[in-house]
C-alpha cells in the first residue's frame, strides 16, 4: 500500500501469516499424497475454489466495514434461478448473466438499505433476507431445478471452459481479484470502506457518506454472489433451488483465515484469496487422502480455530 517503503510490521504479519499457512498446508498435503501437485488436480482445485473466492471477496468488503452478510448463498441461488429462467425463455445467455448480476447487486442494495436506513444490525438484516431470497428462489422454481438452458458456447465456457489451459472460473477469480484489489487500495471507495470499519463515527464526521458507501459495499457483495451463481449455473447447466446453501459460512471462513478482523477496519483482499485457497486445498487434499466427508468438516473447523488462535497471539 505504501509508496514510502515504510510498512508497519503488523501489516507484514497480516499478510505473511495466511501465506505461511497456505505454504505449510501445500507441503503437508503434497508429502502425504504427491498426486496433489499433478497439474490436472491443481487446475481442478482452482476451479473449485473460484466460487467461494468470489463470494468471499465481497464478504471481505462487508467485513471490513464491520458488517456481515449471511444472505450471499441465497442471493447466489435466486440470481442463478432468475438467469436460468431468462435463458429458458429465450433471452441471450450472456445478457441473462449480466441482468442476473445486476439483480444480485440490487438484492445486496436491499441489505444495505435495511442496515443503513433501517438501522438494523447486519447480522439480523441479512439473516432475514437470507430467508426471504431463499424463499423467493423456492417459490420461483417451485422447488425444482431449472434445466434446458440451451447450448450457447459462451455460456458453457463460463463455468466449464478453459482459457489458455486455465479453467475459466479460475480466470474470472483472478481478474476479479485484480480489479477488487485496485478498488480496495487505490480508490476513495476502498479507503472509505476501511475508514468506516475503523471508526464509523470519525469517518462520518470527516464528511464521508457512510450510508452510500455501505449500500455500495453490500451491492458489491450481492453482485459477486450473483457472478458466482452464474459460474455455478453454467457448470451444472441448470439452476438448483438449494444452490449456495451455507456458502456464507465458507466465505466468512475464507475472510477470517485471510487475517481480516471481524471487528472491521483491518484486512487485505489477498488474505481472502489465500483463505479461499486454504479451504479449497483442505477439501481437495482431504478427499485425496481418503478422509470421509463427515470428518472433513471437523478438520476444517479445527483449522479455523487454530488460525484465529494464532492470530490472537500475534495481536497480543
Amino acid at each position, binding site marked *: 500500500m505504501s509508496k514510502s517503503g*515504510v510498512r*508497519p510490521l503488523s501489516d507484514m504479519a497480516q499478510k505473511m501469516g495466511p501465506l505461511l499457512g497456505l505454504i505449510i498446508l501445500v507441503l503437508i498435503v503434497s508429502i502425504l499424497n504427491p498426486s496433489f501437485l499433478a497439474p490436472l488436480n491443481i487446475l481442478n482445485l482452482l476451479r473449485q475454489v473460484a466460487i467461494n473466492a468470489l463470494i468471499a471477496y465481497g464478504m471481505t468488503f462487508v467485513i471490513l466495514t464491520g458488517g456481515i452478510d449471511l444472505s450471499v448463498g441465497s442471493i447466489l441461488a435466486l440470481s442463478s434461478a432468475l438467469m436460468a429462467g431468462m435463458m429458458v425463455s429465450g433471452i441471450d445467455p450472456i445478457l441473462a448473466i449480466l441482468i442476473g448480476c445486476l439483480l444480485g447487486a440490487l438484492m445486496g442494495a436491499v441489505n444495505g438499505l435495511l442496515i443503513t436506513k433501517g438501522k438494523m444490525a447486519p447480522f439480523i438484516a441479512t439473516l432475514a433476507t437470507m430467508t426471504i431470497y431463499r424463499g423467493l428462489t423456492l417459490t420461483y422454481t417451485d422447488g425444482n431445478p431449472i434445466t434446458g438452458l440451451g447450448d450457447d458456447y459462451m455460456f458453457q465456457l463460463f463455468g466449464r471452459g478453459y482459457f489458455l489451459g486455465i479453467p475459466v472460473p479460475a480466470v474470472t477469480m483472478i481478474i476479479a481479484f485484480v480489479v477488487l484489489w485496485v478498488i480496495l487500495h487505490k480508490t476513495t471507495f476502498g*479507503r472509505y470502506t476501511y*475508514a468506516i470499519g*475503523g471508526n464509523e463515527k*470519525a469517518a462520518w464526521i*470527516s*464528511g464521508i457518506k457512510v450510508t452510500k458507501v455501505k449500500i455500495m459495499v453490500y451491492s458489491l457483495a450481492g453482485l459477486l454472489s450473483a457472478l458466482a451463481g452464474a459460474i455455478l449455473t453454467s457448470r451444472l447447466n441448470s439452476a438448483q433451488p438449494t444452490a449456495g446453501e451455507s456458502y456464507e459460512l465458507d466465505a466468512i471462513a475464507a475472510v477470517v483465515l485471510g487475517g481480516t478482523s471481524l471487528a472491521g477496519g483491518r484486512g487485505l483482499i489477498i488474505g481472502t484469496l489465500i483463505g479461499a485457497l486454504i479451504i479449497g486445498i483442505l477439501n481437495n487434499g482431504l478427499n485425496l487422502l481418503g478422509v470421509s466427508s463427515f470428518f472433513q468438516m471437523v478438520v476444517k473447523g479445527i483449522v479455523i480455530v487454530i488460525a484465529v488462535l494464532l492470530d490472537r497471539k500475534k495481536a497480543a
Partner: protein
Amino acid sequence: MQVEMQDIHKAFGKNQVLTGVHFELLPGEIHALMGENGAGKSTLMNILTGLHQADRGTILINGKERSFSSPKEAEQNGMAFIHQELNVWPGMTVLENLFLGRELKNGFGFLKMKEMKALAKEQFERLDVDIPLEQEAGLCSVGQQQMIEIAKALMVNAEVIIMDEPTAALTDREIAKLFEVIETLRKQGVSIVYISHRMEEIFTICDRITVMRDGQTVDTTKIADTTFDEVVKKMVGRELKDRFPARAASLGEVALEVRNFTRKGAFENISFSVRAGEIVGVSGLMGAGRTEIMRAIFGLDRMDSGELYRNGKKIKVHSPGEAVKHGIGLITEDRKDEGLILDFSIRHNIALPNVEGLSSKGFIDGKEEQQFVEDLIKRLTIKTESAETSAGNLSGGNQQKVVLAKWIGTNPDVLILDEPTRGVDVGAKREIYALMNELTDRGVAIVMVSSELPEVLGMSDRVIVIHEGKLSGELSREEATQEKIMTLATGGE
C-alpha cells in the same frame, strides 16, 4: 460521621493532580466542593471512596486513620458516591435496582420479595418520595432515578453521600424535591459533599464551602461569610502568563452566523456570529450545551429550529458531509472516538476528509497524497518517524495535531474547535495556539469551545458565554475577565 483528609497528594503518571489537599467534613453538614474543571475535585472524592489511593497523606474518619482499597469497602463503611452519570439499570425494575448486588435471599437462594419491598417502601418513606417499585427504572425521570440512587445509598446506611453535579439534568421541580430530601438527610445526621458549578444552589443549601484550584485547596469557609464574587475569584485566581502567543486580529466579513438555534432540553435561542480572521471563544460550564450547539452547526446532531448563514447566505446542513462542502470543519472534543481512526496510519487519517481532492474519477493519486500529507506533517510539526505510524501510537498532543492537520488540509473557511487543547501538554498547546493565529491571519474564522478560562481569555477576540443552554452574555476581548465569565457561566448577575 466526621471525615478529615490531610495533605493528600496524588499523581497520575507525570501528571500531578493533587498537591497537599486538606478537606474536612462534619457530621450533618452540607459541604460544597467547588473548582474549575480539572481542579481535582473528582480525584479527591475518588480517593475518599476508595477508587484511587493517595500517594501521600492521611484520611481520618471519626478521628481514626483509615483508607479504603475499593469503592465497595468504602460503601460498607458508610460512604456513597452518586456520580453525575447515574448508575441505574434501565431495563430492571425500581426494586431490582435498589437491591442490585445485595438481594435478600432465603436459605434456598430464592429472593425474599416481601422483605425487600417492605424495606424499599421504608426508604422511600424516609425520603418522602413515591416511586412505583415495579416500574422499569428506565421509565423513571432523571429526578426519580436520582432518588433511587439516594435510597440505595441509605439502604447501606451511608453516613456520607457525595453528589457530583446532582442537579445537572433535573427540572426545577425535581431540584426543589432534591433539596427537600437533602434537608431531611441533614436532620438525620447524614453529611453531604455537594459538588456543583451552580452558585445559586450552593448559596441556597450548603453550610460550608471548600474551593479547589490546580490540585490544591484554596480555603474552606462558611457560606454565610463569603460571596459569589469571592468564590469566583478563588476559583480562577491565577495570573495569565505569556502562555499565549501575541494576537493581532484583522477582522473581515461575517463568515458564519447562527440564528436562533434551538433544541429542546439542550439549547435555546442561540445566536452568534464569527468573522473571517476572528476567534470567538465559547465559554460555559460542563453540560451547559456548548458542545451540542457546535455539533448541531456541523450537522452532527439534529436541532429543532434555527438558521445558519455562510457569508450572508442561508445554508442548510444536515450531515457533516454537507458542512464540509460549505467550508466548515469541526474538531470534536473526543479525538479518540470521533477525531481519529486509531488503527489508521497518520497518512490515512490526514487524507480522510481530503482524499476526494487527491483523486480523479475515484482513483487516489498516491504521490499527490504522500506529498500532501508530508507537507501537513511538517507544517504542524507532528513528531513522528513516518507518515505510516498508526495514529493510536502517538502522544495526545501529536494526535491532536493529526486531527488539526486533517481539517486544515480541507482549507476550511470556518473551523470549530471543541476543547482543542484537552489532554495536550504545555508545549504542544502553544504550538496549537500559534497555529490558530496563523489560520486567522489567512482569514479563517475560528469558534473555540474551551473550559479553560485562561485559554479563552488568551486566544479569543470575543467571548460568548453559555449558561444552561442559553446565551448568557457576550464580552469583547477588552471586557473579558475570568471573574466576569465565571459569573455569566454560573448564572450570577
